[in-house]
């Protein structure tokens, strides 16, 4: 008897808490329900998360769980089997992933959402290095005979082991970086600390004098006081240099891939529209990426409207 009473009290309490709380903002349309599942790239994660946060302020009843799994991980494990509606991607979808999705009856729709510049960072006290050429980067990250100490790259640099941090190969950043630097996607040494969580790389590099890591531009912009960005081939990474294309070869487009069938649901439709509208806004810049040029954004909108028409509205 007492147990039942306790359980009852707990349930009542839980229900009360659920109904009492909620968003403190008053500008909410509370009638839109549903859920939008998102996974994928840790680079695009801050963008999707920020947009979801803003979206939830308008539609607080829509569930938007987001996981940071890496682009490839998101495609392979969630998107192609229909477990998520949207996959964040910091590289274009591969042919094999496209086929896997289609084999399950899923048609991915690509939308570019921002432009990024992969940033290579070192500890602020690493005063011996300011700039790396692509060749030097390749020397550090190649799978065969990579540099072990800083002095291997340049004999004037300290004879200390380079402590390396970077994304794992589930990450689109990894794919893009290896292709741009080593010339072949996936070609990298493996004796570094790999992680899906870019903040871990920030922490690690900030804490070790001889560390070096790489991640999306936003993580550098957010943490400029903690890590030092290296110039690549003489060009400093920034929103401007990524936008103009001067920061190369590490500037790249960021995408979301939407399950075409998910667009039939109203909450997904509104979310994607909201997302695309925001791609030219300051929100993207705040996060640390390059907002899309107007023409690109218009192209996205046209594509979306076309699909919505086809889905039979």
């Amino acid at each position, binding site marked *: 008897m*007492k147990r039942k009473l306790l359980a009852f009290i707990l349930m009542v309490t*839980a229900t009360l*808490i659920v109904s009492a*709380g909620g968003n403190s903002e008053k500008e909410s349309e509370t009638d839109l329900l549903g859920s939008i599942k998102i996974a994928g790239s840790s680079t695009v994660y*801050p963008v999707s*998360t920020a947009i979801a946060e803003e979206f939830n302020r308008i539609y607080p*009843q829509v569930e938007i769980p987001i*996981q940071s799994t890496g682009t490839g991980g998101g495609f392979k494990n969630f998107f192609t089997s229909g477990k998520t509606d949207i996959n964040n991607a910091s590289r274009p979808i591969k042919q094999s992933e496209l086929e896997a999705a289609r084999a399950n009856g899923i048609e991915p729709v690509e939308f570019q959402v921002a432009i990024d510049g992969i940033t290579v960072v070192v500890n602020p006290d690493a005063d011996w290095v300011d700039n790396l050429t692509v060749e030097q980067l390749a020397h550090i990250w190649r799978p065969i005979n990579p540099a072990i100490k800083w002095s291997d790259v340049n004999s004037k640099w300290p004879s200390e082991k380079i402590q390396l941090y970077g994304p794992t190969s589930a990450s689109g950043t990894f794919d893009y970086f290896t292709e741009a630097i080593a010339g072949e996607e996936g070609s990298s040494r493996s004796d570094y600390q790999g992680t899906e969580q870019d903040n871990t790389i920030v922490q690690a590099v900030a804490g070790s004098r001889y560390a070096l890591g790489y991640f999306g531009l936003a993580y550098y912009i957010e943490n400029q006081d*903690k890590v030092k960005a290296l110039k690549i081939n003489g060009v400093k990474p920034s929103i401007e240099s990524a936008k103009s294309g001067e920061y190369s070869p590490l500037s790249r487009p960021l995408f979301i891939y939407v399950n075409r069938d998910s667009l039939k649901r109203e909450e997904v439709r509104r979310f994607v529209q909201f997302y695309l509208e925001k791609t030219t806004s300051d929100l993207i810049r705040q996060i640390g990426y390059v907002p899309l040029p107007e023409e690109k954004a218009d192209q996205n909108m046209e594509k979306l409207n076309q699909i919505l028409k086809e889905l039979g509205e």
Partner: protein
Amino acid sequence: MNGISRGDINCIQKNIYNRYSNIRIEKIKGKIFIFLCIVATLLGVISLVTLLVYVFWDATAWLNLEFLTNPPSRFPERAGIYPMLVGSIFLIPMVALYSIPLGVGAAIYLEEYARDSLIKRIIEINIANLAGVPSIVYGLLGLGFFVAALGMIHGTLIVGSLTLALRVLPIVIVSSQEAIASVPISHRFASFALGVRKWHMIRTVVLPEAIPGIMTGTILALASAMGETAPLIMIGAATTIFTAPRGILSSFSALPLQIFAWSDFPHREFQHGVAPATIVVLLLILLAMNGLAIFIRLKFSRKEH
């Protein structure tokens, strides 16, 4: 002169001196030993107190009603824990629902029905070992069974609570067993002497007396479930979600998961503001639960004799 010579006295004096100094050395060693023991005992407690002071100190500025009712945000000033708070609190009745009937039932069997046989020994050893299995393995069990084999959706409340229920089941069984075993056997015999059937006896005599002990054990088990992180990660709970779960099929997140996510954010406001505040909320909830358990134990044990 007969008797004791100077040499003898020297010898005796030396012996006495040695023996006393041995005693003295022993005493000193004894004192050092006790000192070491005290240091050891206090080491853990003082370290924890220090860390807790740091956490509470960092958290005070960030704890307010908004923190409890806002969803998380990339802006630390706006960040809150509402969805995780609801998620964690929702877990309590659900984990209780799945683990208490099974756990108490198993305990009743072991204490009231089973004879002291090999089977009973095996079951008890088994339960003791299940309690020692790392919680991440329970996460794998949840992933492999509920998500992969049964096809449930990853990251939903029901999968999370089922997995956690499995994790705490051994604790519920053992503490219920102890509670039931502590009911004096004379009460059972008195009941039988009145011609009452076994289940009736259990229902009317044993269980009511054992319930405080069962409740105490269960609350402690639920408290440990609230602190679990690894199993929830394995079954795919969301890294980020801004809405509270609405039902058992909702995606959810929980306080420990948010602590895990935020401990990674290198910004000062997160690491030394929002995250400690989340930890304080979690610890306060755990404190309340443990306090409740202790209160029940004290209140009902005083009633006894």
